[in-house]
């Protein structure tokens, strides 16, 4: 089963932070309070879009072909993601 990384608090809807990290091999544990990277705070669909976009060498034309959508539809999706990233960055500051 693919477990989904929870990014928002189920109680107050604030962004969650990472408290503990563990090495799978030697079981060393690191404790602290770390923010999730911005890309992890995006929706799963948006994360997938960014990965596909990188694989398509940043070409919206190739993305449009792969997704079987028109160029402006794909560009609008990218603009939406850029807006989400800008909002997240502003919230972090």
């Amino acid at each position, binding site marked *: 089963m693919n477990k989904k990384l929870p990014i928002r608090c189920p109680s107050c809807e604030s962004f969650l932070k990472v408290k503990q990290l563990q090495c799978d091999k030697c079981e060393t544990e690191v404790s602290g309070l770390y923010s999730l990277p911005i890309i992890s705070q995006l929706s799963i669909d948006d994360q997938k879009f960014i990965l596909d976009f990188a694989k398509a060498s940043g070409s919206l034309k190739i993305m449009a072909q792969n997704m079987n959508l*028109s*160029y*402006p*539809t794909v*560009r609008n999706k990218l*603009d939406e993601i850029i807006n989400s990233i800008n909002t997240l960055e502003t919230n972090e500051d």
Partner: protein
Amino acid sequence: MKINYLYAPFTRIAGLKSLLIGLIGLFITAYLAFLTGTHLNGLLNLDFAKDADFVFYLLENLINWVSISVFLFLSGLLLSKSRIRIIDIFGTSVLSRLPLIIAPLIRSFPFLQSFVFQSWKMYLIIVFYLVSVIWTIILLFNGFRISCNLKNERLIISFIISILFSEIVTRMVIYLLIFKT
């Protein structure tokens, strides 16, 4: 992604593809308009007269399409934060004109080729024409929305202004053309 091809095909079709399909549709519409004497001189104007060559009927359609596209493109340039492409605006707006084929098409039926002024036949053609215009406007709106990535009041107001200005320009250019010939 759910796509409605009847009124929002531009999620899948835009750019060169829509330009080519739309241009073929525009030529067929103009040819049927020539055969049946149906003047589509503007988006909101319909006249009946077999009084010109095919080129004139073609020019009426071309002038209206170019004028709408230019105004929509200017609105997009002014208001959109996205990097818009001119080919998307011209492509989606020419494809949006496909429903306009309805009026000349139904006039090609023998019983609708001639009619008395203010008769039921005339009103029937007008009803079909109005349906085709509403359909075209919905398509134009969706094409503009996707091509320019505009939303809310910016989208609605700029669309209405663009259509109104393009109608004025279309009429002016067509009248100039009539007076020159």
